[in-house]
């Protein structure tokens, strides 16, 4: 089975600031249920949150490499974290993400990991 990288844009923690503890728990529980589903089907390979700070952006310009702090934390497109799952093909990978609660908060990008095996 192939591996698919599931990239979640926008962190659920950047939601409206007036969430109550009970609201927060219900959101966490939804993600947990989705995760459990993947894990119980043996599909979950790895998952991690990325740090909130924007990271570094490196660009080579005129022979020197410019390193800037990523402005990503301000941007909607920031990747909040990722999951690596196993699926037979894109259709199946997408199907596994159909009920991901993240779709209520931000975009999901699904990319197949190109696993090159040595002959």
């Amino acid at each position: 089975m192939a591996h698919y990288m599931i990239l979640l844009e926008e962190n659920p923690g950047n939601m409206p600031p007036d969430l109550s503890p009970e609201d927060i728990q219900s959101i966490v529980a939804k993600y947990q249920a989705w995760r459990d589903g993947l894990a119980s089907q043996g599909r979950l390979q790895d998952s991690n949150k990325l740090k909130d700070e924007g990271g570094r952006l490196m660009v080579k310009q005129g022979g020197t490499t410019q390193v800037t702090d990523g402005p990503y934390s301000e941007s909607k497109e920031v990747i909040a974290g990722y999951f690596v799952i196993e699926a037979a093909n894109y259709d199946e990978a997408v199907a596994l993400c159909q009920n991901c609660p993240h779709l209520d908060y931000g975009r999901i990008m699904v990319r197949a990991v190109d696993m090159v095996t040595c002959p």
Partner: protein
Amino acid sequence: MSHGADTTVPRLVDHLFRQNAGFLIARLTGIFGGSYIDDAEDVVQEVMIRALKTWPFSGVPENPSAWMVRVAKNCALDLIRRHQVFRHKQDTLIATVEAWHESDTADAPRFSHEVRDEQLRMIFMSCHPEISPEGRLALTLKVVGGFSTGEIARAFLSSEATVAQRIVRAKKKIRGLTLPFAMPVADQVAGRLDSVLQVLYLIFNEGHSAHEGKNHIRAEFCQDAIRLVNLLTRHPLTAVPEVHALAAYFYFQAARLPARCDARGVPVILARQDRRLWDQEMMQRGVLAMARSARGVHLSAYHLKAEIASCHTLAETAAATDWPRILHLYDLLLAQSGDAVVALNRVVALAETIGPRAALEELDRWSAEPRFETYLPYFSVRAELHARLGETEASRRAYRRALALAMSEPVSDYFREQLEAVTARDR
């Protein structure tokens, strides 16, 4: 939730976040001081948000409460180092936070006494008689119950701004008078306890209010009032008969909650409820609490209310209800309080013992009560009495008033059905 999932995956206990919010706010207020509830709340909000940012990816940690304690400690240390007002006692505060063991969590049985006592100090501070009654209620729900301003506003049908304003004023009062984060001293317990019990009673009744239909926050208010009264029944200083009586009242009332609405959420009147749905365990707890309350010489209003609730809840059938006893208890309660709402409840008992005519005459004596102009139960009782006397027009008038005051769809449905039934009888 998928079945067949690995059972070792940590599960989120119901209300874990809310429970931890109350615990952490009390612990941090104890560390920072009563004037810094806002800071305690900021730290706790940060803890909750970090969990929300992290747990979707990492999964729920093995021990979620210990995770929250660890994050709370780190955030608290940051705040202490940053905050100008803490500068002069920075070292002491840092030492206190660092001494807080991560296994000392909201749900650690080993520390249950400390947790209980901290919560009690918080309750006594937020229910201080110097704070306005509305302020006490809102602040207690917020900082002890872990409810948000929005949730409190929705439950009390008021605006978020109003509730927020009440909380701000209450905190200002605490700062202004430097009210202590402490249990009252022994000779002040009785007076201070009054104010606490009033708040718990209001929290419970708000959750229990028969005329508002289903609302999950309300049910949680009932649960929380029961949790809080139990903190009081377990502390030697506050385990007085009156507190047990209030606990008994909560249990007997809560026992009937499962049967109070039908599947559509429409309220079911007491006489028609399916008594098999009543919660037996709650009833037993009620009986036990009532036995514990039967000490001393003082017959408090809570004793009377508990006994009335027990008459309803322990009756095998609606017909077996001991109405003469209930009427007698309402007589005593009315003599104690002179309260119009008590009088209204007494009218119901009068109708059952003497008859609807006598009940209606008594109700007329209270009809000038200003609160009744917008009090749904008043019109509901009036409509019912007129209907029983065959006074269809008057009954319909009262049902229409009740209908206009109904705040939720299921309750409106109930009164619409009543109105139709009375009208149909007339044809």
